[in-house]
């Protein structure tokens, strides 16, 4: 990737250790040009704190400069400074837009109009996983780009489901692009790039994850998207930070309602109470954003499954709520051996599913 001279200096300036978006913004607004700072670093002395200034002087070396661009080149990373034409405009809505966005994969995708962020807990429930995958599949089929944070749980499911249904997705990392976190998602990261998506970060490539870097990247997720869908999360979760960011940026907020007793539905329920849009189906979002039109009600969408008398009893019970073996046994009074074989039959036929804790639920 060829960079303009001015662009090069901006990228260099942003990569200085301790250079926060605010300091960068201040420098650029006052001194107007990054090259001027390279030429005369002392001009920045009064504008930034001593520590950062020392770092700046340390980084002002030919060697460091070359190394920075060598790393970018070698890792296939494109750096976009906030003044670059390809820099996503939506990020400029932020009070503190990332000075430089590091991108692997498609750059064009960052300019997409139709983007939805899907965020949620790292430890989703069965229902949470199901919701995430169903919603993302339906929405990405309408050519909407799904944005998420590549974290464990809902984020991972959102990216995976999007790729599965042939959609494109953007992952915003809380670490540098060369230091994957969580490490098990390295393969998913490559998949995202190969399927036309992008992996982005505001941190220089080799920087590791920091405690503060995850909440910080949430603002990028919110800013990139037109709307944010919160699937599950506690009141104090990262997903709620993303929602708060989205609110500041006047993005649309969608939440999946849940039981008032479910701890992981605390967050979304709270958002709905405060005016978020309750999403009961993917079409609620697609219609609200005018991204798609709800198809006509299908007649009897469910396949007719023939069940015998005993199986019907079990299926009817499980349709209300998931139950453990003991609970089913107690409510039906089937003997353990009968119940065991009935349940296996239903599992094999794909009507119910066994989940951890010896419990069963309808698929």
């Amino acid at each position: 990737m060829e960079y303009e001279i001015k662009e090069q200096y901006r990228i260099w300036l942003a990569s200085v250790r301790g250079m926060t978006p605010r300091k960068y913004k201040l420098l650029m607004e006052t001194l107007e040009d990054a090259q001027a700072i390279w030429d005369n670093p002392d001009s920045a002395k009064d504008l930034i704190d001593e520590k950062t200034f020392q770092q700046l002087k340390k980084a002002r070396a030919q060697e460091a400069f070359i190394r920075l661009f060598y790393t970018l080149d070698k890792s296939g990373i494109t750096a976009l400074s906030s003044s670059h034409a390809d820099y996503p405009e939506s990020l400029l809505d932020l009070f503190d837009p990332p000075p430089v966005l590091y991108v692997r994969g498609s750059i064009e995708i960052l300019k997409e109009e139709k983007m939805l962020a899907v965020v949620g807990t790292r430890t989703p429930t069965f229902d949470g996983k199901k919701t995430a995958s169903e919603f993302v599949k339906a929405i990405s089929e309408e050519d909407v780009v799904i944005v998420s944070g590549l974290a464990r749980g809902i984020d991972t499911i959102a990216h995976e489901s999007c790729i599965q249904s042939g959609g494109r997705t953007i992952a915003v990392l809380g670490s540098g692009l060369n230091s994957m976190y969580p490490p098990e998602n390295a393969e998913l990261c490559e998949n995202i790039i190969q399927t036309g998506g992008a992996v982005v970060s505001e941190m220089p490539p080799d920087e590791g994850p920091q405690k503060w870097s995850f909440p910080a990247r949430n603002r990028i997720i919110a800013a990139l998207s037109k709307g944010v869908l919160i699937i599950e999360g506690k009141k104090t979760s990262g997903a709620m930070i993303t929602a708060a960011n989205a609110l500041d940026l006047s993005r649309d907020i969608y939440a999946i309602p849940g039981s008032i007793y479910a701890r992981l539905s605390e967050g979304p329920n709270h958002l709905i109470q405060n005016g978020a849009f309750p999403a009961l189906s993917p079409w609620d979002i697609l219609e609200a954003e005018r991204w798609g039109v709800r198809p006509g009600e299908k007649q009897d969408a469910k396949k007719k499954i023939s069940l015998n008398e005993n199986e019907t009893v079990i299926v009817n019970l499980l349709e209300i709520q998931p139950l453990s073996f003991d609970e089913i046994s107690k409510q039906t009074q089937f003997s353990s051996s009968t119940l065991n074989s009935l349940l296996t039959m239903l599992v094999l036929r794909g009507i119910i599913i066994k989940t951890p804790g010896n419990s069963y639920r309808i698929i």
Partner: protein
Amino acid sequence: MLSTTLSYGLSGIDGIQITVEVNVSNGLPAFEIVGLPDAAVKESRERIRAAVKNCGYPFPDDRITVNLAPADIRKEGPAFDLPIAVAILACQKRVNPNSICMRAILGELALDGSVRPVRGVLPMAISAHDHGITDMILPKGNEKEVMCISGVNFYPVENLTDVVKLLSGEKPIAPVETIEFSRMIQSREHAFDFRYVKGQRSAKRALEIAAAGGHNVLMVGPPGSGKTLMARCVPSILPDMSFDEALVATRIHSVAGSMPENGLLTERPFRSPHHTASHVSLVGGGVHAVPGEISKAHNGVLFLDELPEYRRDVLEALRQPMEDGFVTITRVSAQSTYPSEFMLICSMNPCPCGHYGSKTHECRCTPNDIRKYLSRISGPLLDRIDMHIEVESIPAERLSDEQESEPSKDIHARVENARAIQRKRYAALPSLACNARLSAQTLQRFCPMDKDAREMLNLATQSMGLSNRAFTRIIKVARTISDLEGKSKITSEHIAEALQYRAIDDKYWH
């Protein structure tokens, strides 16, 4: 002057006959023991000298040579004190030498001449019986061990004077009364009974099947769900021991020096070594190659609580004995083979914090943590466990409204029936005691399936992605389920139920 008598030593769980020869001849006073004695045997010189003197008999001031024959087997322990002392007295004509040459004598001497109990008396007595010995003198403290053996007169003695008086006919001692085995089996009263386990219907059913077929079981569940309690209940539903089984089990415990109060193990042993257990304590060994926990659990249950906490090498050492049903321990001084046919019951949490899949608590573990935790148990070990069952956590409020469950007695009756069917079926194959021991070849022969069952198994193999090993396990367990119902063929219901017991193979663990 020469006199001989008989005694017994131990090799593994078998008694070996030792001839004790004592020669007292003129010469400088000396007391030598030859015939590969170990330290405890050599020290017996001092005990014997003191005991003889303290009982009021003169100790010869001559050259005494004791030979323990056969001379090439290492002799251990203090059991030879009494026979040597008696033989020395025989040399001095205090005791009639002819009265002792065909008798077997066992016992450790105290300095005051009283006789202390020794370990391993039961296997020694059995060997004596097999060798046609009719009279055996043994410590009074060991008399209960031999109560079940008929055909040999056992004379329990308390001190050296007793022995002298018994042999001279001065004060006869009544031989130990034999008791019929059936009288020794007490009423089946167990401290742990399934009656008191509330809920847990699926786990109880699974344990019933496991007991009926002798299958190894792995219980997976959150802490406090009752895994340990249920494991302790298992002996109460296992089939009663036969006399031969009880004898073998008791022999092992006799050798290990952990004899039960009443002398014979009538209940199947339940061993639960702590997870810090070493290789030697579990498998057996040590300087004297003593039996380990797996042998002490022979014909009973070996319970490993918190399986992933055990040292990996210790667990791996279990594999071979589990397969063979015996373990051979080789040491410099001895090589011993101990039987080790046990039913393995293990328990573990589903994840490091223990609450994965629990309804009452939230799990704090990452998928990576869970994977790491589960991988502490090796595949080969898991392959030897036929049934993996999930134990669910029961919220406290549900405990109170559960009615009392089926007592162990009733489950035991069904298990006995199923075992009787198996014994009949495998009568021609002595190495095959229960369904769990079916091999690939015998599986074909003894597990006929009807058409539906075969189809179901094929369907399951495809949709669940069963491995070959899992496949065999399911058939074995299905065989036991059909035995419990008294059916000769395996039907699709049996296969369907057997498919439930493979929690660890399920996808969500990986």
